[in-house]
């Protein structure tokens, strides 16, 4: 894996985590419905697992 690919994958992973946290604050602020929040949580989950599995190193 090139370092550029790794950076892209990491960016998507962290964006997934940020989406999970951010959407919760939007619900708290009354800006987002709970149903939309659930969908964003699922999207954040897919973004994290779809990319983190490739760049998080295995234990030795």
């Amino acid at each position: 894996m090139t370092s550029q690919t790794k950076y892209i994958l990491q960016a998507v992973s962290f964006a997934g985590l940020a989406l999970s946290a951010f959407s919760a604050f939007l619900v708290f602020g009354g800006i987002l419905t709970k149903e939309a929040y659930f969908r964003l949580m699922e999207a954040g989950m897919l973004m994290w697992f779809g990319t983190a599995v490739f760049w998080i190193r295995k234990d030795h």
Partner: protein
Amino acid sequence: MNSSSKSRLIDRLDALYEYDREAVDEGKLYGWRTFIAMFSSEHIAGTEFVLGTLLVMHGVTAFDVFVGLAVGNTLAVLSWAFMCAPIAVRERLTIYWQIRKIAGPYLTIIYSGMFALILCLLAGSMVNVSTTAVTLPVNILSPNYAAGQTAPSVPWILTAIGVGAVIAVLAVLGFERLAHFAKVVAPWMPFIFVAGAIVSLRSLGVTGTGNFWQIVNEKIWTGIPRPGQIHYGFWHCVGLAWLCNIAQHMGMGDVTIFRYARKWQMGFCSAFGMFIGHYIAWICSGILCAAFVHSQLAAGVSDPNPTPGNIAMFGAGYAGIVCVLLAGWTTANPTLYRAGLAFQVATPNWRRWAVTLAAGAIMIVTACIPAILHYLDRIVAYYGLFFMPLGAFIFIDFWLFPRLGLARYYAEQKGLLMSWPAAAGWFGSFGICFLLSAKDQYQSMGWINNILPAFLANYKSDLFLQVLPAWLIAVTLYLVCSLIQQKMSPISQEQTK
């Protein structure tokens, strides 16, 4: 058991840990990042969904939770940093060899066997947690123990068997890939806990910092236990946070891990596990539980069932369900693997796969007992108090024995099969603490108060408040008995060689 079969058992035990017999080389030591990652991932398990919920059910106040858990987790971190890690980096031996040298092989076998059983039980509780997540989307109701459902339904049991079987088979096949997957899951899980809690706070009516403290005291940590639950307070929170991993820190179980640390100060890395897993996650699961119960009561449900699956679905939807499933699964797997290793000691010539499958069968049975999740806090307290004394002996043997002119590793030097001071300290400490707690907890044991002196009969103490008494009793018994033992039979010059 004749003498040849005894020696075979001890040989097998030693062979199993043969690779760990020598101290770790300097070239194989790890730095801060390794230990931070290890603690952060290991202490966010499926059971965090249960323990935070139990504190709500036991009627603690918000102050008890926020301050009590902070104090308890700080004590746990300090125990790792000042008791466990310094000995680990000086000796660089596993817990197995430390106990073997101090207590002799027989007590080590008992330690391994009992440790394997408790690991199966804990793995079972994790399977139970995962099963509550799997059954929810397919409308199979999880048992509500608090409402009197002491056994799960047949479809629930079949699901638990399926989940447990997958875990057992993966443990047999080796879990290298799963260990990697667990490492991937770990950073994501705290986000689910925190996101679910933030959304749940909103549903409870919190609108900002202005009414936060009022609402959490009125609707979450109310100070009033649910019907049928014992009332917990500040010291229970301190005790639970300190006790739940006591077998690892004061009990010295993690010398096996910290023997790979470059410096003893790396014991402070445990703070990442404690404050993410046993502080933030417990608080979040408490919030999720209260919000779920309130919503169910508002919807007319008379006996809400705040299972991990239910509260995670309420707070985070299907992402929450996946989180519960993975939190239970990824921690149950290594737990079962370790249980298999420990069981292998006591099973004559059984293959690793057979032992692990047998451990898996015990795990599945315990997963199907709803009482285990209901009393999980007390189970971890018993577990901690039972295994802690052996760590106390290692601590005393290392720091105090040379200063008192006593020989270290007496059992090893004398070639004893069992150290009676260690046996007296171990079972004496646990027995005394159990009876002091049980006399006021169980009606059938109330008679103990009648035969005790007044000051002990009036001593009211719960399991969670027994950490220091248990440690002091264990150390005192072990020290006094060792003084007698070494006075009666000192180590000769030849034995020292």
